[in-house]
């Protein structure tokens, strides 16, 4: 606790040195925080005591530091947007936002940043806000250590946890987002870092982005989201060491990638998802050092994907390793470990001497005609698969790993 206080003091020193400190001491009638904000000069710090504040829409128009002591509650009374930030260099920390309005027309949020840069929103609790933190046309903002929780049960009457639109160089760090529509939602967001967030039990996607280029996603956890993670129409995406797990359902994916180009998927864990990775229309994606374990399908790669490289991954205990929907194979599979590999290694170099075909006949058939899954695990399907293994006729011959590892790779 002491260290925590020190950290906060250090971080706030610049303002303490340069500006005045205002103290809002009690909750009550009127609009004490807004009043303080109006009185404060740029660079000032406003401390807010514990209590419940119903300000009916706070607005920060100048660069100040607004800090809560013992998480004072800012209540939107289920009607209002709780806090709007339209100035640069603002810091908001230590508040408990609750009950923003809910609207089918406006994107009402707990905190909304309008066209600002270098805004920091950190260590807040957002409880039952429609949208959590909403950034519009902003840049270089940091959203960190916030706990954003709602109770969305379906994706119609709910908003996103962290929502960014037309932003650049954002830093989304160590937030926890649960039971919103999408945990983290980006549209037209570039050059941003998303690290250490935990997004789970959301009504739609744990992470959802479109047209968002050159962003880095690192060590995030996406667990048990209704439809997993979905990313589309972007290039330069880097995914490092994330965990995609327990996204289980008819249309749930560890990660669904559509029209993604020139990207890297490295060192991630895909565990117990219906499909670990689903790729459609992707180009030049490097998938390496990932662990696929306990998924229904480790990867589904549609025939529209090209020049993707899948190498040095561990495939372990998946029902189907790879599924595809066509005979055209424009992607490279090389030097992975497949637990279903039954080849041998005479040279004792750790690499199997015969190629491995990761696509089973049945997964091909099921891809074309899903009703066939009715016969899943039946004797006949087993026989079909065995005979196809001996004489491949339907499964794409080119989809194979020529240098499969005999033993699992040591991956982080």
């Amino acid at each position, binding site marked *: 606790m002491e260290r925590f206080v020190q950290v906060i003091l250090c971080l706030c020193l610049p303002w303490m040195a340069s500006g005045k400190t205002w103290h809002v001491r009690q909750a009550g009638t009127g609009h004490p925080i807004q009043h303080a904000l109006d009185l404060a000069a740029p660079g000032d710090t406003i401390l807010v005591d514990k209590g419940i504040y119903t300000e009916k829409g706070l607005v920060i128009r100048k660069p100040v530091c607004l800090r809560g002591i013992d998480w004072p509650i800012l209540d939107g009374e289920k009607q209002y947007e709780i806090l709007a930030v339209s100035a640069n260099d603002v810091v908001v920390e230590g508040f408990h936002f609750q009950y923003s309005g809910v609207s089918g027309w406006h994107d009402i949020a707990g905190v909304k940043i309008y066209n600002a840069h270098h805004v920091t929103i950190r260590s807040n609790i957002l409880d039952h806000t429609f949208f959590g933190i909403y950034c519009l046309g902003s840049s270089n903002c940091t959203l960190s250590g916030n706990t954003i929780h709602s109770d969305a049960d379906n994706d119609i009457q709910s908003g996103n946890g962290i929502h960014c639109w037309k932003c650049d160089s954002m830093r989304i760090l160590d937030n926890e987002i649960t039971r919103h529509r999408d945990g983290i939602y980006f549209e037209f967001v570039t050059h941003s870092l998303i690290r250490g967030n935990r997004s789970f039990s959301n009504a739609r996607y744990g992470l959802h982005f479109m047209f968002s280029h050159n962003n880095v996603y690192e060590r995030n956890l996406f667990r048990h989201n209704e439809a997993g993670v979905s990313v589309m129409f972007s290039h330069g995406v880097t995914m490092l060491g994330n965990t995609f797990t327990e996204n*289980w359902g008819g249309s749930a994916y560890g990660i669904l990638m559509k029209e993604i180009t020139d990207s890297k998927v490295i060192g991630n864990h895909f565990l117990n998802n219906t499909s670990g990775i689903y790729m459609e229309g992707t180009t030049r994606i490097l998938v390496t050092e990932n662990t696929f374990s*306990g998924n229904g399908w480790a990867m589904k790669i549609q025939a529209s994907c090209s020049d993707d490289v899948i190498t040095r991954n561990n495939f372990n205990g998946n029902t189907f390793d790879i599924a595809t929907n066509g005979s055209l194979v424009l992607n490279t599979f090389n030097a992975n470990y497949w637990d279903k590999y039954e080849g041998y290694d005479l040279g004792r170099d750790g690499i199997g001497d015969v190629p491995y075909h990761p696509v089973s006949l049945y997964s091909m058939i099921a891809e074309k*005609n899903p009703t066939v*899954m*009715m*016969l899943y695990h*039946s004797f006949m*399907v087993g026989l079909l698969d065995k005979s196809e293994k001996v004489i491949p006729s339907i499964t794409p011959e080119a989809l194979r790993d020529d240098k499969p590892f005999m033993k699992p790779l040591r991956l982080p």
Partner: protein
Amino acid sequence: MKIIKYIISDIIRNKIMLAYTVLLLAISLSVFNLEDNKAKGLLSLMSVILIVVPLVSIIFATIYIYNSAEFIELLVSQPLKRTRLLLSVYSGLAISLLLAFLIGSGIPVLIYSPSIVGGVLIAVGMGLTLVFASLAILASVLAREKAKGMGIAILLWFYFSLIYDGIVLFILFQFSDYPLEKASIVFSSLNPIDLGRVVILLKMDVSAMMGYTGAVFKEFFGGNWGSIYSGGIILAWIVAPLYLSVRRFNRKDL
């Protein structure tokens, strides 16, 4: 019904029965010991049970009835109702086969994977034992010669294990432009092995992998009514062949 206990005591001394029990036990134990993942162990065990249990049940029961032809004749000459006699023979066979199955697979499942899925697997195995013993009775009542009866029995097993699924696969492809989810529920009801497999898979929550079909199946078979429905269908698969057998047997010349 007094003769059931004599039939059981005869069958449980049968070497084939002993071999069946040992085989199931060996399969169950090796599956659970080789697979470190219990769920996968159950899945492998399911595949084996769905093949072996119907096969052994129908073949063993058919052979037993043909080998006991003279004995059954003797019993018919006794003051016994034929219906009661046939049902006693069936009960004796069914109870012995169930006993073998429960020792061979039930106990290992109970030890290694005491879960709802395990319970459902055992229930399905028991159901299939009863169904195929019943089909065996029908086969042996229909055909006078042993060779023909065995042929019918093997064909029945082959049909339910393989041919039927082949036909379904063919139909699904021929009519792939139409929504066949509802039809596939009917298809699975018309084959006790398919029905058993679908029920187990749904309990294992692999329905997500079955796409929309899985969702339809889950909705249909998932709830209490679904359990009652599948139980009812299996029961019908036991009772219907038995009923036909009894009717035929009552008029049969021995």
